[in-house]
């Protein structure tokens, strides 16, 4: 099934020729390490409670979520506005950052469900783990890793959520293929991300500063 995705769907960006993927990843990690450690510094995107309000996060969802996880929130959408998660479901949060969405999901699915939050930035994963401990969320597990090699078994997840991360995949097709792998047949994808109205040039696609903002 995934082979057909690769061969048959136009418009899905694959690996970009000339893009230094390792340098891009380091640049993104550096940026989001600052979002983890100094969330109020001021970025080209909103963060924290102000952002949650812009994205229509319900106050009830944020009740009991540690302030650290909220402060370093840097999403671009609202995966939960698409539909609620159900008790007992298994969820993978791709690019979980400081863990706000994973912790909201953990509460929605309850003790019989499970969340795996994955992020490539060590500082974000550390902050997410601290928040899970503070919130006593026992049904969520934060792991460091890349979207292109998610630490979850084939067909494990009922739902994949993500928020502002797909645009940072250097190879969209590889990331989407991996998300399809961990989803059960019929499994749902509920993502927030960004859309550009004007095409980015091939040179622009290799410009790491442009990827960052």
């Amino acid at each position, binding site marked *: 099934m995934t082979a057909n995705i690769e061969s048959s769907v136009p418009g899905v960006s694959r690996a970009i020729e000339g893009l230094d993927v390792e340098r891009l990843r380091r640049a993104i990690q550096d940026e989001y390490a600052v979002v983890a450690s100094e969330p109020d510094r001021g970025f080209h995107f909103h963060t924290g409670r102000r952002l949650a309000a812009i994205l229509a996060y319900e106050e009830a969802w944020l009740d009991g979520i540690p302030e650290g996880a909220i402060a370093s929130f840097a999403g671009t*959408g609202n995966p939960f506005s698409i539909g609620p998660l159900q008790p007992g479901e298994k969820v993978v949060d791709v690019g979980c950052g400081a863990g706000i969405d994973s912790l909201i999901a953990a509460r929605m699915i309850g003790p019989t469900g499970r969340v795996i939050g994955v992020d490539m930035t060590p500082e974000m994963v550390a902050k997410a783990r601290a928040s899970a401990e503070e919130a006593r969320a026992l049904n969520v597990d934060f792991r460091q890793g890349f979207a292109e090699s998610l630490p979850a078994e084939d067909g494990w997840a009922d739902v994949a959520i993500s928020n502002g991360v797909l645009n940072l995949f250097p190879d969209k097709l590889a990331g989407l293929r991996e998300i399809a792998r961990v989803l059960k047949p019929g499994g749902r994808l509920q993502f927030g991300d960004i*859309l550009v109205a*004007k095409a980015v040039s091939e040179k622009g696609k290799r410009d790491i500063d442009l990827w960052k903002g």
Partner: protein
Amino acid sequence: MDFEITWRGDVYKDAPQASSAAKFGTIGINFRARRARNDDEWARALAMLSCTV
């Protein structure tokens, strides 16, 4: 399959630092999709696919 953009919004307006968002008309979106239940369903979805790039 069943891809749908459910929301669009200007999430960069009044951000603390300037960015390329305005230059590229960048907006925030929510979208949903699902993995096909089986190969037959996926094949039917591909056959109906229409995409302009």
